[in-house]
């Protein structure tokens, strides 16, 4: 799974938009959307919101957590705690990236938010690396991954699995080549 796929999943999240056109309810496989009234907020998936935004058909209302003060608080908490703290949205990174890239004019203090979310992300990834490190160095068999988002798991997965494989190879005295099929132990 690569990050674009995770982003694709994130696009299913709902976000509020204020359309500037009028349209009746539309019926899609994923569910009904609308009705769209000009000036009245309505919930739509991110993919539609971005599409409409790019066509200048709507304004996006940023999610409640996308607020400097709340994010600052979250950042502090994240820095203070050793474990992962709950994140505002399971797709916070992806949503921030998408919304700030396409609708930064609708989001107050977009730059600050970008920095804050990046800070939170960096803190979390650092924690993740640290715990991966201790996981490997202490030869643990399993780890608890509470409050991790899909994107975060995804970032570490390729590296972690490969390195575990490598470690395994190095640790086992088996000849290279005959170790196939035993990776599943981890």
């Amino acid at each position, binding site marked *: 799974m690569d990050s674009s796929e995770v982003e694709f999943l994130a696009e299913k999240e709902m976000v509020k938009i204020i359309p*500037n*056109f009028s349209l009746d309810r539309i019926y899609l496989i994923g569910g009904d959307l609308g009705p769209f009234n*000009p000036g*009245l907020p309505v919930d739509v998936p991110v993919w539609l919101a971005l599409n409409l935004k790019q066509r200048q058909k709507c304004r996006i209302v940023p999610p409640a957590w996308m607020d400097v003060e709340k994010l600052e608080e979250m950042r502090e908490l994240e820095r203070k705690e050793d474990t992962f703290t709950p994140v505002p949205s399971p797709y916070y990174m992806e949503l921030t990236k998408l919304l700030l890239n396409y609708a930064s004019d609708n989001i*107050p203090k977009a730059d600050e938010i970008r920095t804050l979310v990046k800070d939170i992300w960096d803190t979390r990834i650092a924690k993740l690396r640290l715990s991966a490190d201790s996981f490997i160095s202490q030869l643990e068999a399993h780890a608890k991954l509470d409050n991790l988002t899909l994107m975060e798991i995804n970032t570490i997965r390729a590296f972690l699995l490969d390195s575990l494989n490598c470690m395994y190879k190095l640790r086992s005295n088996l000849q290279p080549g005959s170790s196939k099929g035993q990776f599943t132990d981890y």
Partner: protein
Amino acid sequence: MPCERKPMRYGHSEGHTEVCFDDSGKFIVTCGNDGDVRIWEGLDDDDPKFITVGEKAYSLALKNGKLVTASSNNTVQIHTFPDGDPDGILTRFTTNATHVVFNSSGSRVAAGSSDFMVKVVEVSDSSQQKTLRGHEAPVLSVTFDPKDDFLASASCDGSVVVWNIEEQSQLISWPVLQKTNDISNAKSLCRLAWQPGTAKFLAVPVETKVHLYERGSWDHVSTLSDDLQTQLINVVAWSPCGQFLAAGSVGGSLTVWDVNSKLCVERQKHEKGFTVCSLAWHPSGSQIVYTDTEGCLGLLDGLSTSTSNTNTTKAPAKKAAKDYDDLFDDDDDDRLMDEGLSETNSPVKKPITGDDDDDDDDFLMPATGRVRNRGAILDDENSLGELGVLYIGQNLPLGEEGGISYVVVPAAAPLVPMRPVYEGPMPTAPQKAFQPGSTPAHLTHRFMMWNSVGIVRGYNDEQDNAIDVEFHDTAVHHAMHLTNSLGHTMADLSQEAVLLACPSTDELASKLQCLHFSSWDTNKEWMVDLPEGEDVRALCLGQGWAAVATSALMLRLFSIGGIQREIFSLPGNVVCMVGHGEQLLIVYHRAPGFDGEQALGVQLLQFGRKKRQLINGEPLPLSLQSHLSWLGFTAEGTPCYVDSVGVVRMLNRSLGNTWTPVCNTRETCKSKSDHYWVVGIHENPQQLRCIPCKGSRYPPTLPRPAVAILPFKLPLCQTSTEKGQMEEQFWRSVLFHNHFSFLSSSGYEIDEDGQSQTQKEQQELLMKMFALSCKLEREFRCVELAELMTQNVVTLAIRYASRSRRMALAQRLSEIALEKANQIQEEEPEEQEEEPEYSGVRRTSGNRRDREEEEEQAEELREEEEDGQEMETEEAAETTKRQFHLFSSTLFANVLMGYVQVLGSGKPSSSSGLPRVTNILDNMTSSRKSSPLSRSAGIPSKGPVLKPLAPRPKTKTQSTLLQMNGTKAASKKTPENTQPAADQQKQPEVPPPASPADNTENNRPKTGFQFWLEENRKSITADQPDLEETDIIKEAMGRFRTLSAEERLSWTERAKGQTGDAADLKKRKRAGGGAENDNGQVEADENSSKKKKSLDPSSKLSAFAFNKN
């Protein structure tokens, strides 16, 4: 000491806040974590002035028009008050100051800082500083000795120190506090306070108690404590008289002690239990204002110190005297005082100071006695007369005089309503004209209009004076940016145009500018100058027209292209004005309002083809002490408005243009100072579109506010109960349904789906309420509800009632059903021009008044009916037919049946006597007629309105006709309408065989069994309600077989008679009549046999019927 705790309001963002009163007590001044100092004109001031002093403000002090603040840039600054101009930096620390205070004269400021130092600075010359060193931790608080010799400070090192200011030395130190290393870790702020006036005591909050140290000896003389006080005391404050001490604690409790008696005289609790971090007394001693660490501001009002005061007797007098004193001090300037008055009051003109208190009291006695007497006997006339003199002498307008009610002198007395002013109702300042959907004009960035079409924003700052027009729906027009060279202050926006207006200036007349962007020619703009001396006060746009109300009490109409149209005078100064389609709604000042009320009048005009005034100058109902804050039309065109209390009212056109409150936006507000700024109302769907504003009445332009949707809720009683909820839903639905009739009557297209939907919803609600009332054994209520139902729902109700074994109820309901059928029939010819869709509710509400007239005419009508009975009957039947066809096609056949029977019984009525009735419910109604006793027992007086036509021998046929039509349709319909609901399992693909759906079915030859089934189907379904269609037929077959041969024969014969078909009606009339007779007998037999068999509810019904026969 009784006092009233006012609800908390939002003051600042979260964090430490401080509060004080200004010298006059007129303003509350707060500072907070957001770096602003706010100046509130009272707790309800939603638009306080503010002075930004830094990023954070830690402490403030205010005296003699100088505002001293400790801000985050480590300085102590001065600002002028109330203007807020910076007036220099008083001193600096290496870190931020924690507490600043003035001395009693206002000449010096002391500041404690986190860098362990305390500085005392001369306000006039900031170079004269005295630094007090010795604390070993950040300073928590400082306080001046009122006599200016000493200074006390508390510090995080746990000590409370008294300093000699001149010598800059520590006099004494008490290690009474807990040690901490920083203010943020300190459990308590330990705000010290020195008793004002005599300066005898220094109050030090120590844990849950307050220690009092005596000046001079520095002994700990007493401790104020309260058993209920379990939390650390954060802050203490002396009352201006020095007799009371208030303390606020970490847990939010507020305590007031009488220092002489050491008794706790008042306990209050912060409504949310937040830490009280600042506390201040009103200069008069009647109020305490406090703030908490969450940034909220609260007030204790009505603190009267008299009850526990030993000096009570002289207190009010002193107060009054001082009042007078004040008054005359004011006068000294103009020396216009009445001689006599000055003589009588001359003693009190002596300056009063704290030192010569005793002398003063003696001196005051004569005046005291007089004043107190007057207060006691309430000799209003006398005082009024004197006041008159006073006013003449002073040449002061009444309004200004009212402002002197605040006493500047720190009085040792409670506030007594002894103002030397007129005490009757005071006129309210009339509210200014405004554009609904705009924010105040003094803002540099403001909304000039926000309505359902779009947003007009005005910018008026140094760089730019411009107007932005933006449309919600970009399909209307693209956004526009205009330079505002004329200085427009008012705007309106519609689908066709933007209308702007500016007030007149010295050189230029007031102008009206219209950007008619929907125009198809190239000239999209026009401008009109108003006559000199006439200013635009309000403006609005309708469809194809624009209206402007001016300062000359004139209303000018323009066409949207710029042609001047009608002009007329307004009865008062306009408040605001809105247009929608052809309608114009104007609100103006009817008269001056009194005691905070506004006296507004409203006019509703309709243009278009038939121009008329729908509401002519009726008073506009507002909530108490409120003003109009929004006026508009719903998207469907019903006028509505919002007052400043947040109540939304809507015009109820079906109740003689009354105003119904439909929503209270304040109920959904989280905090008292939050408001909703309404931008639009929709009736279908029911939406109140508004912008939530935290801590203000209107939104800022940035960040761009988002619209929220509130539901409507009629303020009915007990909406927590199921009954109340349903009632509320029902009446709301009725109210929001009114626009359909308005729209259709004014020739607009209506959403018929929506209309039928709401009707259905209403009827469903009625049925639910009916069921609920049934369950609660409220039969009278059931009947009342049934009167609101449409006829076919009444039949449903009848069925429900009979199922739940409420025979009396079912009987009464059938009367109502009959009544309704009657009504429909009578009204049909009159209402031909109306649209065919009927709403039962509208009927009952709209036509009830007509009905009384009809009742009066009933006698006449009957005479006529007798004459042309034959004709009448046919005609009536015709109309019935039409009527029911419109109701539903399935009923049509039933009605035809009734029609046939009517025709059958109509002519030969003389020979056959009373027509034999074939239906259970028919029987019931006639049984009622024959037993009026039971009726009067059940419902003593039903009122003339609902009284059915009395059966008179001569008009028997007529009444029978009605009865037949009504009940026939009703009873026959019952299985049809109820089966889908009641018998869910009924298979939908089976056609309803009992009621032929159209003429063709009626024409088809039938067997005797089918006829019998038709007649008895109901009783079968009633006996075994859960039978499926095929089972019903099986059951019916079985029963039919049990009939005797004779009976079966008669049914077959009847069937043959029927098959003769409706083509030759005349022939069939007689035959039909005969068949009817047979039929009746047969059924009677059937019923009698059944009666023995079962005691089911509906068989009980039939038993009832049989009794009659």
